[in-house]
């Protein structure tokens, strides 16, 4: 058995396969690096910056940096976690995230990361944007208030479903998710509940109607264990594989 190449993650050796990113190798080895826009079935996007680590002294997004380029990676440091906390706080302040009444509560990656990083306060003044929900589709509800612009739905719709139902429009603080229909309403697209795009949202934007709160508190994904203990669930896999 030939030894796989390795890099050091917070002082511990992590083996990798050629072509893997630092994130992919770390997760496959059961080591968690906080992330939001990374998804085990999709090409990296590098937009949320939550996975930023010090790779041989330089700040880089671990979801995009190839493992081959890394010798020593620092991730779980107070400095980096503090920056991550700030990013998460900004996301909470930018949208309208009311966790107690959100159907995704307990299964939401943003919320789980907030708990994991010890986000106790908003930290910033809430922007309270006005983003009406779109309930026009018979099976799916879109609650734009919670969008963190990770583009996973955009990527899934384009790459897996071949439909291009979603896109991001606008720039800077005006950036927002749009639906590819003249009316702008999901009910006027060919989106279907079985589409990959309908099951990738890490937060509570894309929801199946009539299923809310069916899983009791205590049995939801991140009730069972904190996100940092679920690294292997995020290990790279093919898009056909569904999340556990």
């Amino acid at each position: 058995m030939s030894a796989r190449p390795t890099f050091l993650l917070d002082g511990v050796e992590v083996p990798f396969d050629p072509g893997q990113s630092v994130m992919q190798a770390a997760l496959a080895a059961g080591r968690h690096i906080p992330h939001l826009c990374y998804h085990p079935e999709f090409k990296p996007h590098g937009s949320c910056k939550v996975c930023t680590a010090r790779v041989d002294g330089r700040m880089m997004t671990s979801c995009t940096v190839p493992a081959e380029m890394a010798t020593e990676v620092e991730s779980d440091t107070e400095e980096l976690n503090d920056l991550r906390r700030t990013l998460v706080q900004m996301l909470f302040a930018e949208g309208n995230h009311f966790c107690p009444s959100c159907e995704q509560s307990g299964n939401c990656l943003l919320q789980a990361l907030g708990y994991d990083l010890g986000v106790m306060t908003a930290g910033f003044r809430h922007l309270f944007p006005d983003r009406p929900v779109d309930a026009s589709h018979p099976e799916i509800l879109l609650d734009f208030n919670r969008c963190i612009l990770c583009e996973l739905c955009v990527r899934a719709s384009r790459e897996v479903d071949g439909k291009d139902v979603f896109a991001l429009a606008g720039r800077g603080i005006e950036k927002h998710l749009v639906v590819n229909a003249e009316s702008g309403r999901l009910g006027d697209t060919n989106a279907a509940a079985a589409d990959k795009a309908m099951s990738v949202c890490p937060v509570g934007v894309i929801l199946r109607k009539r299923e809310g709160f069916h899983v009791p508190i205590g049995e939801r994904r991140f009730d069972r264990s904190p996100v940092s203990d679920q690294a292997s669930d995020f290990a790279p896999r093919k898009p056909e594989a569904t999340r556990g």
Partner: protein
Amino acid sequence: MVGAKTLTPTAEKIRRLMHYGQILQSHALHFFHLSSPDLLFGFDSEVAKRNIVGVAAAYPDIAKQGVLIRKYGQEVIRHTAGKRIHGTGSIPGGVNKNLTAGERDELLKDIYHVIAWSRGAVHLVRQLFEQHLEAWREFATFEARTLSLVRPDGAMDLYDGGLRARNADGSTIFDHADCDRYWDLISEEVKAWSYMKFPYLKALGHEDGWYRVGPLTRVTRCDFIPTPLADKERREFMAFDEGRIARSTLGFHWARMIEMLHSAEVIKDLLHDPDITGSELMAGGKREARGVGVIEAPRGTLIHHYRVDENDQVARANLIVSTTHNNHAMNIAIREVARKYLDGRKLTEGLLNHIEVAVRAFDPCLSCATHALGQMPLSVELVDAEGNQVDRLVKD
């Protein structure tokens, strides 16, 4: 609206358990934390002492029992809803969890203490009334029509039933009325000087149709309480002082403790019911665009009414909450206090305290903060018939 007209037995009993847990914890909070300082120390007593910390120092056992009863109610909620606040147990068509045998046994362990402490609380209020009968009998007291839910056999039911409205003399205005068409019976008046609406019984019009809801109404207007210890206390309450306390505003506290005892007994019965651990959680039905739900919340009748559009988005909602039902009644209570404690020229600290005590008999929502360890401002203005301000007193 899912349209599940009848829930599965497990779902209905889990929801009942959750609701009686809520009544238990809310009544304990209302009485021990928010009102007992007035009753134990006196309405004019030192403000610094008149709070739950003062009660804990002077009456440690009472304070401890209050805290533990409340905690028990919160545990019932946690086991049925997942969390003590913002739980998710009730979902359209049923519930998302039953009680596991372990959870049931954990709750059963303490329920007999809770029943005993709740009985003790009823007896404590009775003793206080015996001591202060002269002063309390008439305090902020007035005649009122009443509205409450009752079970088809006339029993107290805080979770479901038909609407019963009675005149002050006990004669019936309507009985076992269908909640689903509450608007045939109740309307709400808007007044320019208040954000709160003024509900009234349509048959009597907005001038005369106001009524009172809540524990005092429920205990005195049901035909019986369907648990033995609470019903015994109800009969004693009704007979006490020739029935005068059962019509008095401070009688709310006594009635509230009887309901707390009843809730503890209901919880015990439900915990012994095998359906509570059953696995049939959801029922279906024919989707409807409109839904009305009416329960007896801790402070009184609570009406929720929704209409949804073709996408299931809420298009219209109307809530008549307990505090709103009691709006006019609370105003009358304050007027009674003013009649007695106001000389028409000067506002006094004593008057302010008595206003708080009157409001608190109905509803801590409007006054709990005044007993908080911090302070909550209360401003009273005395205005003459021409609208000129005669006096103003602010507590901040």
